[in-house]
C-alpha cells in the first residue's frame, strides 16, 4: 500500500522538516567553530572525550537506559496486552495509572518515591531506572496501545495457542513482532528519556551523562553544543539500527536460502 502525498501534505512535511532540521544544522555548524575564528574544526568533539568523568558518566547512563528498557518491556508489554484481551474491565484503570506521571511534577515524584524505595537501592544510581520507568510509562502505554489496536489481537492469540504455543511463545514470537514498530518506538522513547533526563538525577545527586554534560559545558560553550549534537546523533543512529535489524536479518536469511 503506497499512499500518495498531496501538495498540502508535502508543504506541511517540508515545513516540519525545516523546523526540525534547521536548528540541528545550525547547532552542528556552531559546534564546529573554533575559538578565535580559526575556521571549522572537530576540536570541540575531541574536547568532549578528554573531559574528566566522560566515560564513567556515559557508561552509567547507558547502563541505566538498558535496565530501564528491560523493566519497561517486561512490565508494560504483558500488561497492555492483558488489558486488550481478557482484562478489558481494567483498561480504564490501567490507562489512568499509566498517564498519571504526566501530571505529577518530577520533584514530588523524586521525594515521594525516594522514601518508598528499598534501602538497598537508595544509594545506587540504579534507583533511577525505576523512576525512569514511571516517567516513560505514559508514552510507552500510548505507543503500545495504538500498536495493539491496529492488529486483530485476539484472533492472533487464539491462532497461536491452537497451534501449540504457550503464552511466552505467543508473546515473543507473535505479539511483539506483530507490533514491532510500536515496540521499537516505545524502546526508543525510553532510551532517549533515560539518556537525557536531568532533573531527577540532579535532585537525587546522581552523576549521569546529562549532569556531567551540564557541569563541563560551563567551561566551553562550543563544546556544550557539540555534546548536544553528539547525544542527538547517537540516539538517531541507535533508532535507525533498531529499525533496520529485522530487515538486515531477513536479507541474511535470503542469502542463505539462495546459497
Amino acid at each position, binding site marked *: *500500500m503506497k499512499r500518495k502525498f498531496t501538495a498540502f501534505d508535502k508543504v506541511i512535511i517540508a515545513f516540519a522538516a525545516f523546523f526540525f532540521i534547521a536548528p540541528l544544522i545550525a547547532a552542528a555548524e556552531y559546534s564546529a567553530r573554533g575559538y578565535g575564528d580559526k575556521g571549522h574544526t572537530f576540536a570541540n568533539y575531541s574536547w568532549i572525550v578528554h573531559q574528566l568523568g566522560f566515560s564513567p558518566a556515559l557508561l552509567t547512563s547507558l547502563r541505566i537506559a538498558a535496565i530501564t528498557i528491560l523493566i519497561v518491556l517486561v512490565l508494560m508489554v504483558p500488561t497492555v496486552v492483558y488489558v486488550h484481551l481478557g482484562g478489558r474491565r481494567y483498561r480504564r484503570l490501567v490507562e489512568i495509572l499509566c498517564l498519571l506521571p504526566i501530571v505529577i511534577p518530577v520533584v514530588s515524584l523524586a521525594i515521594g518515591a525516594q522514601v518508598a524505595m528499598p534501602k538497598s537501592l537508595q544509594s545506587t544510581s540504579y534507583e533511577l531506572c525505576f523512576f525512569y520507568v514511571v516517567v516513560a510509562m505514559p508514552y510507552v502505554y500510548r505507543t503500545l496501545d495504538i500498536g495493539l489496536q491496529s492488529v486483530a489481537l485476539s484472533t492472533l492469540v*487464539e*491462532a497461536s495457542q*491452537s*497451534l*501449540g*504455543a504457550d503464552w511466552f*511463545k505467543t508473546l515473543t*514470537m507473535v505479539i511483539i*513482532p506483530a507490533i514491532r514498530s510500536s515496540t521499537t518506538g516505545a524502546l526508543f522513547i525510553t532510551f532517549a528519556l533515560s539518556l537525557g533526563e536531568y532533573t531527577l538525577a540532579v535532585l537525587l545527586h546522581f552523576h549521569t551523562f546529562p549532569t556531567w554534560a551540564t557541569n563541563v559545558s560551563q567551561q566551553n560553550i562550543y563544546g556544550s553544543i557539540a555534546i548536544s549534537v553528539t547525544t542527538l546523533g547517537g540516539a538517531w543512529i541507535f533508532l535507525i539500527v533498531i529499525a533496520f535489524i529485522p530487515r538486515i536479518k531477513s536479507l541474511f536469511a535470503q542469502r542463505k536460502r539462495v546459497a
Partner: protein
Amino acid sequence: MDLHGSTVEFRNVKRTFGTVKALDDFSLTIKPGELVTLLGPSGCGKTTALRILAGIDKEHEGIVEIDGKDMSQVPANKRNIGMVFQAYSLFPNMTAIENVAYGLRVRGVDSHKRESRARELLDLVGLSTQADRRPTQLSGGQQQRVALARALAIEPSVLLLDEPLSALDAQVRAQLREEIRRIQSTIGISTLFVTHDQEEAMAISDRVGVMNKGVLEQIDEPGKLYNKPRTPFVAGFVGLTNYIPAVTESKSLVLVLSQSLEISDHSPAVKKGDEVRALIRPEEFEVQKADEGATVITKSFLGPVTRLGIDVGTPDLIYAEITSKEAKKIDTGDFVRLSISSDAVMIEHV
C-alpha cells in the same frame, strides 16, 4: 499426509453469558473423517461451540471429548486442534511459509523438516509459488489458503473452521469451498465447519446441524434437512419457504389456498379452527394458466427452473418454481391456478 480421523463428542454442553444462553444443552458427535457443519443465523452460538472445543472458552458445563478422552483438563495449546478463522489471523510479521511452519517451530521440529513439510502443505493448497510473500501481499482467498495449510501442518486431530469464506467474494468463495472439501476428504480429517450461509453448508457437508438461539434444532444429511425438516425454524432457514396463512380443519388436516392437506409429523399440536401458517417450498406448487384467479407479478429465470411471484390475495407474494420449459407459456400479468402437490405440509402457530 494421512491422518486418522478422530471422534469428537459434545455432551450436554451449556454456556451462558449473563442471561444469554449461547449454548443450551448442546450435544453432537462427529464421526472419524466426517465434515459436520453448524448452520445458523448470527449470534446463535456457532462460534461459542468451536471455542469450547478448541479449549479457548472453558467456562462451560457439560463434557467435550476427543477420541473418548475428556478434554476439560487439557489447555488450548495441548489439544492439537487446527483452527481457521474468518480473517486477519495470519501472523503479519511472518511470510506464508513461516506462518505454515509456526506450529512445527513451536513444537521444536528442526528447520529442515519444518520447511519441507510447510512446502508440502503450501503445495496442497496451491500456493507453492507464494511461499515468501507476507500476508499483506496475498489476496483474501490466498490468505485463507495459507491459514488452512497452517492449521493442517500440525497434523491436528480435528479441524475447526469459523466462517472461513464469509469475507471473500462470491466467486472465490464457491471455488475455495470445493477445495476445502476436497482437501478435507483426501486427508480424512474430522472437521467442524461453521457458517450462516445455507448454500455453503449444503454444498460441502456430510451432515449439517441447524442452530437457533443456542439450541441444535436438527442435524442431518443436507438432503434430509431440506426434505424432512423437523422444526419450522429449520424449514424456514434451509431453502426458500413460503409462509401461507391457513386454518386447521381438524387435528390432522389444514386448509391452505382452498386445498385440504395433511399436517406433517413435526408440526406443533393444533385443534380444529386454529389460525396457522403453512410452510410450503416453491417447488411444491403446480401452476396452470387460467382465465381468472391468482396473478403472476414477477418472473425470474434461474436456469433449469423459473421462479414466479404470484399474488393470491395473501399479504406476501407466493413464490413457486416450475421448469423453465413450462414457464415459457406463462407471463407476468397472466392469471394462474395454484395447487400444492405434496401430501403433507408443516405448519406453525401464527
